[in-house]
């Protein structure tokens, strides 16, 4: 006989994975819009954010319904973790929207002549998101734990680009407005990596019932 509660959990998991796929696409496309100065793609990313927001609401509704049925142990952790992961995915969508907004503005201005490691940073952040979600799907806490220290690399790159852009602005004051847009975009990528780290921490909690948040500071 089919287990109705398990079906509900599976539906929640599937919904979360659909949302994750949307969030990943949003980040990918926002970075693409930024690098390729693609105004239309930037607008598209902003428009699509509503879909991600809707996913967050639907996942919360499903989770609350499941919680009324008193899930226990792994099932209880899965439902609460799903709510937290969906919140992080929604924030990732918001950061993608911020990048897209800067991409839209930058596309209408002449390019700034500075070489940034932004594609590399974007690739690091995106891979973190992807790996965190894979660890959720595989219920692999070792893989999830391995994601967490990678956030520092993204933080360092952000700091490095921030310095470079600050320097460039001082030397080229006419580019300040454009460079500020780049600073916001890199900061958003740094936040995306933070959210990937949060998701990984939730996966560790799901698999091991260990709360490791805030234990990697400094």
């Amino acid at each position, binding site marked *: *006989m089919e*287990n109705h509660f398990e079906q509900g959990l599976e539906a929640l998991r599937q919904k979360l994975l659909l949302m994750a796929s949307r969030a990943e696409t949003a980040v990918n496309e926002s970075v693409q819009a930024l690098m390729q100065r693609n105004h239309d793609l930037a607008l598209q990313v902003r428009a699509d954010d509503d879909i991600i927001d809707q996913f967050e609401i639907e996942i919360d509704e499903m989770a609350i319904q499941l919680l*009324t049925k008193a899930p226990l142990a792994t099932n209880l952790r899965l439902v609460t973790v799903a709510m937290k992961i969906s919140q992080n995915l929604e924030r990732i969508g918001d950061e993608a929207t911020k990048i897209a907004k800067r991409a839209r503005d930058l596309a209408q201005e002449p390019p700034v002549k500075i070489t940034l490691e932004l594609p590399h940073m974007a690739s690091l952040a995106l891979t973190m998101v992807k790996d965190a979600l894979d660890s959720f799907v595989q219920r692999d806490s070792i893989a999830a734990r391995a994601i967490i220290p990678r956030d520092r690399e993204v933080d360092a790159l952000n700091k490095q680009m921030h310095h470079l852009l600050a320097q460039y602005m001082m030397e080229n004051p006419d580019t300040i407005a454009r460079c500020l847009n780049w600073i916001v975009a890199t900061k958003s990528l740094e936040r995306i990596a933070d959210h990937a780290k949060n998701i990984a921490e939730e996966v560790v909690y799901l698999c091991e019932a260990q709360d490791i948040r805030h234990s990697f500071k400094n």
Partner: protein
Amino acid sequence: MAEISLPKLNMPVAAAASAIAAPTLIEINQLSLYYGASKALKNISLNLGEKVVTAFIGPSGCGKSTLLRCINRMNDLIDSVRIEGSLKVADQNIYANDVDVIELRKRIGMVFQKSNPFPKSIYENIAYGLRLHGMKKKSELDDHIEQSLRGAAIWDEVKDRLHTSALGLSGGQQQRVCIARAIAIKPEIILMDEPASALDPIATARIEELILELKKNFTIVIVTHNMQQAARISDYTAFFYIGELIEFDTTTKIFTNPARKQTEDYVTGRFG
């Protein structure tokens, strides 16, 4: 039990009507029930939907089992009982003088808290009701018995011991045989009075899964003390307190955002 004040419901009938999305099968209107001089149910108005699971919840003595037993006139068996108001099943007033109670109970099966198989074989437990309703042919009986036991998700466990005593089964298995016995005569409605309260978590989970399967074909009304069970299996929930219907709504609404404070207090365990 804590004393709480109970403001009168303003529009119980309207609330009940608006909550139900499924077509109404059971229509309870201003129903009151007295045990002698004591009024055990007070002006209950409630519409229950077809092929959905409705849970009755509330503290002991609130009248939920009494109301359940009104639906197939089980309370007729108690001499001091007097009923006012009306209770219709599929538009027929079941308390009208011309109603054949035996025929009514064929349409409305019941499963009790304590499993009560007949002290006969598993086969005979199911065959009994079928024979009573005129089925004589062995092949036909065999088919119906298998179908009923399959419907109650117990066939695989008992198919090789159909002619052994039903009393030799575990409590959970006995309860599913009782459900098979109830569904054998193809009722429209199955009333369940705490059907899983004496069972362990595994047997309880089986019964809950079974109820979710049965609602595809039957209308189910269940009395339960287990709030999470109500949340897991029911579509609608009615909360009773000292003979009154306090709130009736979708189960999701009752367990996430009940409209009345008494309901909130009960489902969160503050009283009862």
